[in-house]
């Protein structure tokens, strides 16, 4: 083998190696990452209209903001911030097996607030849903007052799903403009009940 052919051979090897690495880099950087592969499937929702996911159907009837709330069981927990009270009907669609209403999140900017479990049985979060029979009741979110009136609060979203881990399942997403809501002094909220409103 003359030195010339050897040199060409090396150059070709190098080129092939660079080509393989570029293709690998392209695949690596364009393939959906794990977060995308496992992300929940968003279902857009609007106020007053039912939105249906794989095994959850919810209708948000109203959103209100108040400094103090009294729940249907008499609970009146205080907060240094404000309460955002969401009144909704929620039901399972396909099966009631494992249909726990585990995700109720109010997202303001990058910050997530989960529905409070402090009211005990006067809130619908963490309740086992029934197939085709809506459960109507409130969700209580505890927010700092400055967050509730911030610019990001205008584009807040309400996210509802089954289970505390909504990955690879339907996630009902409803935009909420919190800055549009008047802050009421106090709010009496009904106890959850079966049936639609």
């Amino acid at each position, binding site marked *: 083998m003359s030195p010339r052919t050897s040199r060409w051979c090396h150059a070709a090897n190098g080129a092939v190696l660079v080509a393989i690495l570029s293709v690998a880099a392209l695949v690596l950087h364009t393939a959906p990452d794990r977060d995308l592969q*496992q992300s929940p499937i968003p279902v857009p929702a609007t106020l007053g209209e039912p939105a249906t996911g794989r095994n959850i159907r919810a209708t948000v009837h109203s959103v209100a903001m108040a400094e103090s709330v009294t729940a249907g069981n008499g*609970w*009146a*927990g*205080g*907060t*240094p*911030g404000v309460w955002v009270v969401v009144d909704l009907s929620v039901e399972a669609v396909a099966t009631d097996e494992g249909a726990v209403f585990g995700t109720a999140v109010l997202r303001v900017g*990058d*910050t*997530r*607030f*989960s529905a*409070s*479990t*402090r*009211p*005990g049985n006067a809130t619908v979060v963490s309740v086992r849903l029934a197939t085709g029979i809506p459960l109507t009741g409130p969700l209580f*979110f*505890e*927010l*700092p007052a*400055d*967050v509730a009136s911030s610019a990001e609060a205008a584009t807040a979203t309400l996210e509802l799903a089954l289970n*505390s*881990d909504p*990955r690879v399942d339907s996630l009902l997403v409803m935009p909420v403009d919190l800055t549009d809501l008047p802050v009421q002094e106090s709010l009496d909220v009904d106890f959850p009940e079966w049936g639609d409103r």
Partner: protein
Amino acid sequence: MTATPPKERRSWRQGARHLYDRLPTAWLLTGISGVFLAVSAVFGGLDDAPVQAAPVLETGDTHVGAELTIAVSQALLIDAFPEQLVIPEDGNRLLVVRAVVENTTTGPLRLSSASTGPVKLRGIQADSIRIAGVDGLPVTTPPVSILVIDDGSDEAVVQPGVPVELAFVWEVADTVAEGEPIEVQLMDRVKISEGELTYGGLYDDPVVSATLDLTLDDVGAGVSE
């Protein structure tokens, strides 16, 4: 004799190479270690690294941790919380540490107690406080319950930016009496990374990032304040 000795033809570079080839590896390694140690002497050498003692806080001071800010206000003894079904066994009483906790992250954090059971909210547990210096109570004992003082609910999920006053409850022998000193240790956990095989963050073991010395009060059968 016509041959010139090869030594004279060597450049300094070849000479160094020759020397290097003849150098025993053990000498080389020892030499490198020696240089390393000598250089390290500039930064303190083989002295023990100073251990930063956890700062000691005063009652009411706010401790800013990685995920939570905690301000401990009081430690007291109480018979029971019957309405919350937190009732100690015969011969035991409850030791309560009151603290205002604020979540500085961007998601809700659930403070875990011993009674959380197998079902836990995803990725939102935080270690917060533990107590030392109590007879018969190992320092690693988690609280039997964490109550929200405002309404007595027993699921402490701390929402971002919303400070909440909590009662951390331990069960202790009733020989523990008013006036005894206890040490409250405020814990901090450090996030290592996002899990590669698991979902959610991976956390290092929590470390004591501040301590607080308190004297136990006694409220007998129990009053709210």
